[in-house]
């Protein structure tokens, strides 16, 4: 259970000071699939980075089952990320000189997980295990990054526009993989997207505007990646 209270975050100083997060509060339950929607510049990524411990807030609390993120020092934050979180980004960020197998091993090693090859199979790349990122298509690279994230058995998975760089067909496929693995493993998932329709696959939808949450509701009619418009 993640409890976020009154989160604020500023960028810049003096006249350039800009409030990227303006008193954001939210509760997220274990196993939730939360989608964050909002226009460009509304603070979605900032929110994701702050609650995942990549950036520090300027005010407010972030509570993971009683552990307060805002009080942790750099070493404790690293340890926290190691034990709890995983990330998937729009730009994949694979390690270019390592093959698929080793890229996934990077995530798995943090959980001392020797049995990580099954994640490569799960994203349908069992036959590309020795390929390097530059030899893969965008969609395949994103699948590697999914396998890498899941191989560390995260409690919470953060995704920032995971399908943003992909065409519709590939995007659907990626989303389908993610949702399937979420169902199987029951981790908590928080995903930022531009795409209104993707929100229909989540059980909780948050809308942001100018650093504030403007709307938050449960979704009763959860759809699959192939049922939504794009």
């Amino acid at each position, binding site marked *: 259970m993640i409890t976020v209270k009154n989160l604020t975050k500023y960028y810049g100083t003096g006249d350039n000071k800009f409030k990227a997060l303006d008193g954001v509060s939210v509760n997220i339950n274990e196993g939730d699939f939360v989608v964050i929607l909002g226009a460009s510049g509304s603070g979605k990524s900032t929110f994701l980075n702050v609650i995942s411990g*990549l950036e520090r807030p300027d005010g407010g609390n972030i509570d993971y089952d009683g552990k307060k993120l805002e009080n942790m020092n750099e070493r404790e934050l*690293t340890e926290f990320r190691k034990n709890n979180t995983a990330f998937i980004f729009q730009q994949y960020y694979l390690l270019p*000189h390592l093959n698929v197998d*080793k890229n996934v*091993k*990077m995530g798995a*090693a943090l959980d001392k997980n020797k049995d990580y090859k099954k994640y490569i199979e799960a994203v349908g790349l069992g036959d590309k295990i020795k390929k390097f990122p530059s030899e893969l298509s965008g969609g395949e690279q994103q699948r590697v990054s999914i396998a890498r994230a899941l191989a560390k058995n995260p409690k919470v998975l953060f995704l920032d526009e995971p399908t943003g760089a992909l065409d519709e067909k590939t995007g659907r496929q990626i989303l389908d993989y993610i949702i399937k693995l979420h169902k199987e493993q029951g981790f908590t998932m928080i995903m930022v997207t531009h795409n209104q329709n993707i929100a229909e696959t989540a059980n909780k939808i948050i809308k942001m505007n100018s650093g504030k949450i403007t709307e938050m509701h449960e979704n009763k009619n959860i759809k699959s990646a192939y049922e939504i418009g794009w």
Partner: protein
Amino acid sequence: MRSVGDIMVVGLKDGFKMFGISIMTCCAVTVCNMFMNYYLDLTAVENLVTGEYARAFYDAQLMNSKVVCSVSGGCLLATTVIMLFFYIGHYINSHGMEIGILKALGYSDIKIAKGFSVFGASVFSGCIVGYLLSFSLMPKFYELQNEEGLLPDISPNFHLPLFLWTVIAPAGFFALIAVGHSLIKLKQPCVNLLKGIARTKGKNRNVKDKKNFISDMRSSVLRSRKTLVFFIAFSSFCFGTMIQMSSSMRELSSDMMGIMIFIIGIALAFTTLYIALTAVIKSNLKNITMMRIFGYSAGECKRSVLDGYRPAAYIGFLIGSVYQYILLKIMVEIVFSEIEGIPAEFNFDFPVFFIVLLSFIIIYEGIMLIYGSGMRKIPLKQIMSE
């Protein structure tokens, strides 16, 4: 990188950023010009040298000048060439996107390559500083070389050919090499540049699995930039050679020689180490950030990115120690054998070796620790805002 409308791909600013090359050439020109100028001024007074002993001393001085000049000059020249190649490769790799776009727009290789001639500017600036530096040191140097007054008193004269050879020629030569080498490097399909395939070509080999991820990462970092292994080895080679040599030179020649070699050694060692480490960190910044985001500690990142270079560094140091011993032994036997008052036998100085080794360990590991702790402060958000 200039705007697309501009033909010059590499700006003058980029040329001056290559200060490593400037330092290298500055050292080379300082030493070579000083000794060559001395050589020329000395040959001009050859007729005034009388007496058998003075004659021997005179010959030894000439020989000494030639040896020092060719050893340090040649060594530095070779390093500068390698460093230049490294810079150009590095530049093309890290600006692959922009260069790829230019090529895609129809710019010819030669048009882009011409821009790389500004690297000659960094050579020129180093040479001119070194040239002036050598002249400011010369009066004192002349005095010390003839402390015993065996030779007629001479003062430094200006030699135009020497100026052309130590300042103008290197700048032109390196500008040409830069253009030539970048032409070779640019000769690839622009898609490769755009997609960064050029960067990974030939470097991505599937190797046997290591026992843990950190070791996998370490070997991939080493493989991805082989020149850097050379640089780090060379850096500690310089440190080992020059520092130990400087200690021997103080006895064999003069304090001035000793101090000069010491300073060149330190300058070379730290410049190359700095360049290599900055390149290692820069080219791995994204990878380090990603590892940090996933929860690897700064210490683990340091071990995977920097520790792989340790063997190269220590081997470089050991080779340097042996090298300086052999070099000095030869020099003592050839140059000094005819002069009295200087021991014609030269032995390996173990106490000095151990002191220098100890300081090497402390400095090297200290620098690695500093760079490692820098990894703790990498802003994790940066990676997402590119």
